[in-house]
């Protein structure tokens, strides 16, 4: 325990990296997930097929395998060779999480009454205007709880990056437990509390959005 507290700057820096990976991956996967869901429900058959296949494939692949692809397989064929580790971690987490975002949004889209999309078409909106102004704003609101869960799972999933040399929270935790095995329980508790704080912040944000949007309709 003492070891952790006397090196607390290392702990903070590790969690800062975790937050960075999570925040960047959160933004990227929300954008990618939105693009995927637009393809999935869109009028163009090829894109629909592509998005469906992508979601099926990646969602059913363990995150560790996605990481192996980005960190080991891809550089072997010349991709991401000089990409910084942080960015590679973000890419791996985002590619994986976007499939869950897509599915969460799709459930939200299903909650928007079909009649509203028809009404939007009837006043001359194109497919993308319909999505942007009528369907997605409401789908996002309906998807807040599952999206919140997805973001929480994603934050904890960033720990896989530790395996690939990123000194984020889990990586730093292993660094401490390797050196002070007798103190493993204490070290674990410190790092667990760190994760809990981050996850609770996401939960609070999610509840907040839910409440605000429930009021406005």
């Amino acid at each position, binding site marked *: 325990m003492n070891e952790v507290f006397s090196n607390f700057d290392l702990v903070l820096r590790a969690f800062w990296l975790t937050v960075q990976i999570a925040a960047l991956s959160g933004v990227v996967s929300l954008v990618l997930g939105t693009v995927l869901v637009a393809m999935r429900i869109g009028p163009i058959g090829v894109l629909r097929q592509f998005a469906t296949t992508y979601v099926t494939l990646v969602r059913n692949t363990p995150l560790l395998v996605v990481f192996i692809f980005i960190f080991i397989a891809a550089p072997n064929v010349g991709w991401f060779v000089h990409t910084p580790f942080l960015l590679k971690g973000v890419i791996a987490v985002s590619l994986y999480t976007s499939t869950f975002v897509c599915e969460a949004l799709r459930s939200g889209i299903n909650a928007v009454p079909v009649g*509203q999309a*028809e*009404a939007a078409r009837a*006043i*001359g909106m194109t497919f993308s205007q319909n999505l942007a102004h009528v369907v997605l704003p409401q789908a996002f609101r309906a998807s807040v709880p599952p999206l919140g869960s997805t973001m929480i799972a994603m934050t904890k999933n960033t720990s896989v990056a530790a395996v690939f040399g990123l000194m984020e929270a889990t990586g730093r935790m292993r660094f401490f437990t390797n050196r002070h095995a007798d103190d493993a329980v204490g070290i674990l508790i410190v790092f667990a509390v760190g994760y809990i704080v981050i996850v609770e912040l996401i939960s609070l944000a999610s509840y907040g959005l839910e409440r605000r949007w429930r009021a406005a309709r």
Partner: protein
Amino acid sequence: MTDVGTVGREPLVALDHVDKWFGQLHVLQDINLVIGRGEVVVVIGPSGSGKSTLCRAINRLETIDKGTIALDGQPLPQEGKALAQLRAEVGMVFQSFNLFAHKTILENVMLGPVKVRKQPKADAEKRARELLDRVGVGHQAEKYPAQLSGGQQQRVAIARALAMEPKVMLFDEPTSALDPEMIKEVLDVMVDLARGGMTMVVVTHEMGFARTAGDRVVFMADGRIVEENTPEEFFDNPRSERAKDFLSKILKH
């Protein structure tokens, strides 16, 4: 068949030999119908007769399998930008209102003009407020749809359609989902519109509206247009057995 209402009118909507199937079900069978500019056509018929499908086919919310539909001489385009542009010219009012639940009443009416017609916001808002006043819900402009009664929501839906300055207005059973005491306020708005010279296709069970505001009644059954006539002639002297049977069922109470 006689073209009762189109005499002396310029044709605005023309359906020519239109057929549609839902799987095995032949919902529209060889429909020929010309609607003149400024004409109010009331489509009535038993449920499942294809009248809603006919109405929705005019702005291609339902595709057709055979025949052509033309608006102002232009055949309906396939999916895409051209179709969106055509739909902007055709107002539609639904049975279930279909207001955008996340937008205020005012935003509901402004959305089309601002996003589709690219009007400046200030102009669109001014026009939207005028329209909301006209349909009698101007004082509700800042509320959300769920805060309004059904009748009020439907009047907003009419204002939303009118904001696009459509050439023709389609009404798909606009009062069927309303409580009885709210039907009149919606019909009043529609009668006003009809008197103002709007071209209207109205699918409804409101026989009173058909008599007051209709130029022509089109009676459909089993996917066909069975009879068309002036409202007076149709209600007082229906010619077909099918129409007589239908009228006897709905009027004898």
